[in-house]
């Protein structure tokens, strides 16, 4: 009796939380996704390739934010700062030191991790609202810091830095937009797989436990402060890598590119994609990139208002983000399937 139940429930890990997609589903979606991704650079105009590249870059940044806010429960409205640091790291290395773009990503990752970790230390003392404020302050401050005369020598001050878009290596028959797309996708796959592994692991569970009940988490032997600071670092790392990729894609960095509006946009992307959802961040990236364009399409003078209305509608329709909606639909389908199966 006991044994039978055990076998039943133990099941395949993909079905772990009730109402999740079945593995067959997932495999199909995954394969389809790969096929679509692989064909994009050969069928679309460069401009669209560029746009999709940007969307994926934003998605990576949002993924970083999601690790922090969604999974670990630390509210941040300041991730534009880490995006900026990543972007500037890449730009300075390429422009000032002639270092290949390949090395900019690990460097940006390291730099941002350190910055994030250090910022995470005082942030430990702050609770949600206060933390939101502190990070928001960071977002406001970063453009000022970037153009300050202290660092102007490296950052190029208000003029920013122009960099050159990398060409495809090994004589691959790709133009720079196509190559950057491929490169971004490769990086994104690594980042997403890493995030997925992390979230589904012992460490990931610790992060969520801290979000849900920090006192209980520490009673379970989780070093709450350390994990929180490290999460801040990892989150900054993700966003910083996105920033470095963004610098390559735009080929230009300037303080005005990284205002708090970017931080707000990343946050919006996080929520509409789905808090604590990894795949939702892709939707978030697309949203951040395309919805302002759609809004503008309706009305120039009222672009902001249209954007706001779209945002409200999206939140009404999917209060738990795109991922939440998908989860709901799938669980409905599963239930219906079960009902009709009976």
């Amino acid at each position, binding site marked *: 009796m006991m044994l039978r139940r055990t076998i039943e429930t133990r099941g395949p890990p993909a079905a772990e939380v009730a109402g999740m997609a079945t593995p067959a589903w997932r495999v199909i979606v995954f394969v389809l996704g790969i096929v679509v991704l692989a064909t994009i650079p050969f069928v679309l105009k460069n401009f669209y390739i560029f746009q999709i590249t940007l969307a994926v870059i934003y998605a990576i940044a949002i993924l970083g934010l999601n690790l922090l806010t969604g999974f670990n429960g630390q509210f941040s409205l300041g991730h534009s700062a880490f995006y900026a640091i990543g972007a500037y790291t890449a730009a300075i290395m390429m422009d000032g030191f002639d270092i290949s773009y390949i090395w900019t990503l690990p460097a940006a990752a390291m730099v941002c991790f350190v910055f994030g970790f250090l910022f995470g230390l005082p942030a430990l003392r702050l609770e949600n609202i206060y933390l939101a404020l502190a990070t928001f302050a960071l977002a406001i401050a970063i453009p000022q810091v970037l153009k300050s005369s202290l660092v102007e020598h490296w950052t190029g001050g208000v003029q920013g830095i122009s960099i050159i878009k990398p060409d495809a290596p090994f004589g691959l028959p790709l133009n720079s937009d196509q190559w950057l797309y491929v490169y971004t996708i490769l990086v994104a796959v690594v980042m997403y797989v890493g995030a997925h592994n992390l979230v589904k692991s012992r460490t990931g569970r610790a992060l969520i436990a801290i979000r849900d009940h920090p006192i209980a988490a520490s*009673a379970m032997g989780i070093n709450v402060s350390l994990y929180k600071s490290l999460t801040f670092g990892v989150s900054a790392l993700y966003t910083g890598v996105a920033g470095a990729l963004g610098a390559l894609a735009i080929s230009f960095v300037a303080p005005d590119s990284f205002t708090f509006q970017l931080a707000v946009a990343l946050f919006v992307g996080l929520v509409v994609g789905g808090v604590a959802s990894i795949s939702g961040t892709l939707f978030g990236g697309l949203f951040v990139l395309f919805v302002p364009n759609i809004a503008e399409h309706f009305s120039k003078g009222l672009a902001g208002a249209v954007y706001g209305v779209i945002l409200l509608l999206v939140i009404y329709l999917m209060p738990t983000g795109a991922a939440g909606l998908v989860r709901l639909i799938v669980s409905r389908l599963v239930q219906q399937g079960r009902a009709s199966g009976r």
Partner: protein
Amino acid sequence: MSAPAAVAIEVPRAAARAMTAAPLIDVRDVCVRFGGIVALDCVSFTLPERELLGLIGPNGAGKTTLFNCFSRLYTPVSGDILFEGQSILSRPPHRIADIGIGRTFQNLALFRTMSVLDNVRVGSHPLGRSDFLSNALKLPWTVREEKSLADIAWELIDFLDLGEVAHRRVADLPFGMQKRVELARALAARPKLLLLDEPAGGLNHTEIHGLGELIRRIRDERRVTILLVEHHMSMVMSICDKVVALDFGKKIAEGTPAEVQRNEDVILAYLGTTKK
């Protein structure tokens, strides 16, 4: 005041060294204050390994406060708590589970958005050593570690008969079941000492009886020493080896269940007439 206290400390320590059966826990003159409120007032007792001690007392007597001292959520203004002969007060809260102290919470402190299985797996956190990097890379040894943590969790889920709800979100479960999840979670790190704060809350008579059996089994089969806070006297009296009664932070009685049950102070402050 300090001189006799020092002497008092010296003696049992010498004695403890002499005897091989040193107490697993040794609570020494622990005092806790919140502003003007004295929550614990020089409470001392010891508990040998694999014994089951019941901690009783009226509401607000300081029972949970004592547990919170074990968890290092509160720091006593004076006194000390020794575990296996070593003070735990120098340890931060997250370094308590790894020396083998597990607990449940009176008012439930589950990870509400997580499934039962995940809650229990978080409980076994101290048994693992994977970190951000190794987990993100899914190194082979972390996969093995995951497997062994999952095995521990499943074993406990079966032990506590939670199999049917293993994948449900804990927040959606009825209260009594949530209490059992807490118990499973507390056991997942294979503790030597288990602190149970009103585990029978929300259970009916049969269930309480079953729980009593279970607690005994945990002590016997899993070799766990248990400190039990409970208001259900039937259970305390039937399973505990020893009972300590607190009132207004002071220890008012200590002894076998039968002794304590007969104690006038305990009856007056705590049991009232409905002795069961």
